[in-house]
């Protein structure tokens, strides 16, 4: 192969070679298992040793009639909606404020607001569980300053308060980045 043909060959095939590792991993670890799970979803099976029984759409019928499934869908929708509706305006407002030349120590505040994004989800979960705990949590103690005695509000345990509490934690994590 002379030099010109070698360069032509490279020019034509190099992009494919570059994306090949990703494509192989993507097909092997995402597409294949995904396709196989879809196939398996039409069967009933309990173990590798047992027989697979084709049940058609039965698994989907059960899922669609399951109140827990719809509860999870509703919660996810509410969470997403709440997060997007609050996070985008808040982040935009913060961005506007922090680009204003009249604000002093902008670098510090930018770092402070962005730094929450650098901590992991597990850290946030543990930290907010402590902040929102009914007896010793900072939230109730802070409220106690205004009402005279720390209330015993179970932020994560009360059904009406759990979603806003989780949203609060998510906002704390992502508002500086969003």
């Amino acid at each position: 192969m002379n030099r010109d043909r070698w360069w032509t060959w490279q020019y034509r095939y190099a992009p494919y070679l570059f994306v090949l590792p990703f494509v192989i991993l993507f097909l092997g670890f995402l597409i294949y298992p995904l396709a196989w799970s879809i196939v398996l979803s039409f069967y009933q099976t309990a173990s590798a040793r047992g027989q697979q029984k084709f049940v058609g759409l039965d698994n989907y019928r059960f899922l669609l009639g399951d109140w827990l499934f719809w509860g999870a869908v509703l919660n996810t929708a509410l969470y997403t909606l709440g997060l997007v509706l609050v996070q985008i305006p808040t982040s935009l407002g913060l961005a506007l404020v922090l680009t204003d030349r009249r604000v002093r120590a902008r670098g510090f505040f930018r770092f402070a607001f962005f730094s929450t994004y650098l901590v992991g989800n597990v850290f946030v979960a543990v930290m907010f569980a402590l902040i929102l705990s009914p007896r010793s949590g900072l939230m109730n103690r802070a409220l106690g300053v205004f009402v005279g005695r720390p209330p015993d509000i179970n932020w994560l345990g009360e059904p009406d308060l759990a979603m806003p509490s989780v949203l609060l934690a998510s906002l704390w994590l992502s508002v500086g980045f969003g």
Partner: protein
Amino acid sequence: MTFHLGKPVLAMMGIALISGMLMLLMPPAPRAEMKVWVFADSHSNSYRTGINGKPSLVEQYREKTGVRVEVSLIAAKAEDVRLMSLFSSDSANVPDLAEVEIGSVGKFFIPPVREVGFLPLNEFLERDGLLKKMVPSRFAPWSKVGVIFGVPHDVHPVTISYRKDLFDEVGVNLASAKTWDVFQEMCLKAQGRWRRKGFDRRYALEMPQAKTDYLVTMLLQRHINLIDDHNRVYLNDPKVADTVARYALMVEGRRRIGTDSTPGVSLWTRDLANGDFCACFTPDWRGNYIRTQEKGLAGKVAMMRLPVFEEGDAPTGTWGGTMMGIPRRCHNPQESWKLLKFLYTTPQSLEARLKFTNIIPPMREQWADPMYHRADPFFGGQKVDELYIELADRIPKRYVTPFTPMAVKSLSFALGRAVAHVEDHGEAGLREVCQAYLDRQAEDLKKRIAFGTFE
């Protein structure tokens, strides 16, 4: 010399080459003939670490049999996923022994008995007399329709540990309460006196409003499993509704005696030390946490049996647990069984257990060890291990099925409803509300069981 990708890349390639060659030249670690998977740090230490100048348990086993054993400490979740994957793919690449936690074991029982990934152990247990030597009710969590798939590591009887100093201060003898009604009365009396002394936020008992560990223990006291090992549902048994209602009245409303502890690993011991609550449920492993983490409480705490709801109830329940099982496809089940017995039933294993976990073993003959009969200065000279041993033989059967976590979730929903009802309406109509809700949940659970059973 020049390198067209630059010196840093050259340096990295050089380091990779040298370290790769070193790896190749290093002698490989001797391969173990047997593998054991565990998820608990303390269990791993008790098998792998030397005791009082003697070699570790696995070393002793090697000296005795010539078989090299490797103990791998794997995070519980990771171990579950690996075992489930290996069992689901019928792989032979399984460990020779694996420990599984009681909260995880249910899912391994999804397949029909003949297809469960663990080996049935009834014959082994019978042959070696372990069925009689161990606490019989402790085989229940590790069984499916009478077939036993694991040997229990523990019994975990539950007691109440309480701040004797704080209760004595207000003239309340908590240990004299034999029923939950009397217990609640005494706690209310103590709380009233603490309030007068200025302790506005001190409660008598740690008692979570949303979590169900305490509630499940109380139900076990009344001999109720939400689902038994034949998948029969007892979620809407009238006793369940009654217990949920009584529990709700202990954590909410004007007769409240319970509060949540601070979330986080073992922060509850701090709450006890601070006097935020003055009593808590203590299976043996939790008792050990108090002893090791709150040394300042030495001499200030005491332990008592659980009060009962009515005659015939057990004065204890059980909370937590671990089994060791033999994967069906392991290379030599007889060898695995030999190792299992060595790790769980020998005097050497008891020595390691006493050193690293101090958990009451399920083997009754080991209870004769003098260590279990000494006065415990931490508990004011009380012989607390003797109390645990006395209760160990009286723990009710606890079953775990693939549907138990779902049933516990339903129980948690019911508790949430009950607490909200007490908050809004007090005690009026509480039992009826609980019963109606549990009836609906039980119907739902039965549908799920019918759909997800593979027999």
